[in-house]
């Protein structure tokens, strides 16, 4: 079971001070490639030790939920080598994507990706986008019903 496999890893991450994670990032990356699924979680490195990023981890403070849609407002730049997660998110958000899909694609916990996405929306790298057509709840339900029946 996958959750069992990652249990100890997360616990180990929290036991070490965040300085260690920032310094050891290149090593951690090579571990990623080496161990695949057993990659080491670097919660502090990923948010670049940015206290603001931690502050926006929750849906209530960032205004983002798992199904919020964002789209890249710029192409990945040269400075992205220090923050590969941001480069990867930009690369996956060429078309409007939900936060949870981006999390699955960059293989990071959805709460962290929400934090990074919120920071990227704040600095203009990503744009939030609403649906092209705003539908009422009943219209959505009827559309879903018709869509499901015709599957």
């Amino acid at each position, binding site marked *: 079971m996958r959750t069992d496999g990652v249990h100890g890893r997360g616990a180990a991450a929290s036991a070490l001070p965040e300085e260690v994670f920032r310094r050891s990032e290149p090593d951690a990356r090579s571990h990623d490639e080496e161990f695949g699924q057993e990659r080491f979680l670097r919660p502090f490195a990923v948010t670049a030790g940015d206290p603001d990023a931690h502050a926006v981890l929750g849906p209530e403070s960032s205004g983002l*939920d798992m199904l919020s849609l964002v789209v890249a407002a710029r192409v990945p730049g040269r400075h992205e080598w220090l923050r590969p997660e941001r480069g990867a998110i930009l690369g996956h958000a060429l078309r409007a994507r939900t936060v949870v899909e981006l999390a699955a694609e960059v293989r990071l916990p959805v709460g962290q*990706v929400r934090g990074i996405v919120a920071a990227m929306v704040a600095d203009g790298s990503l744009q939030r986008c609403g649906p092209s057509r705003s539908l009422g709840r009943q219209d959505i*339900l009827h559309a879903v019903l018709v*869509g*499901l029946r015709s*599957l």
Partner: protein
Amino acid sequence: MASADSETRPQEAIPQAVKIIIAGGFGAGKTTLVASVSEITPLSTEEVMTEASYGVDDTGGVEQKTTTTVALDFGRITINDDVVLYLFGTPGQDRFWFMWDELAEGALGAVVLADTRRLDTCFHAVDFFERRGVPFVVAVNRFEGSTVYREEEVREALDVSAEVPVVLADARERESCKEVLVELVTHVIRGRNPVMSG
């Protein structure tokens, strides 16, 4: 390749993303159901939880925080140009309840998958959706070798109100899963639950 094309079309239609929750006990067939109807191979992400672990680990009275991660699987069905439906399987273990609130927020409704061999494992899910006012249906997943119960028997055992649909299903069969989702959406439209309006 469509990539060059998409960059020159900023006005691409952006659909509304909506979700349905697939809940139930550990091993009830949630991931199977999502995979049966999803247009994509179900994707997986994780959520990190932090919990105070005093009383669990003997750390000599020192309260410690530990983090653990929990897998979250989801699938997708494109309804039309305007609506995309996401199906989220809830983490099966009870200790991951912290995720349910966010999952349930704004959901169209929920499917509670019941395993008749371990009916008690879905009590929590029924309770959760009842309390939150999230409309749901109970789908009894048929496992080979399990006793076949009638709808009324399951309804009585779960003590769900009369208006909650209880349907028999096979999570491995796409048609069957489709019927469960249709039953749920029909139930939501019929129900006009106050929580779902607006």
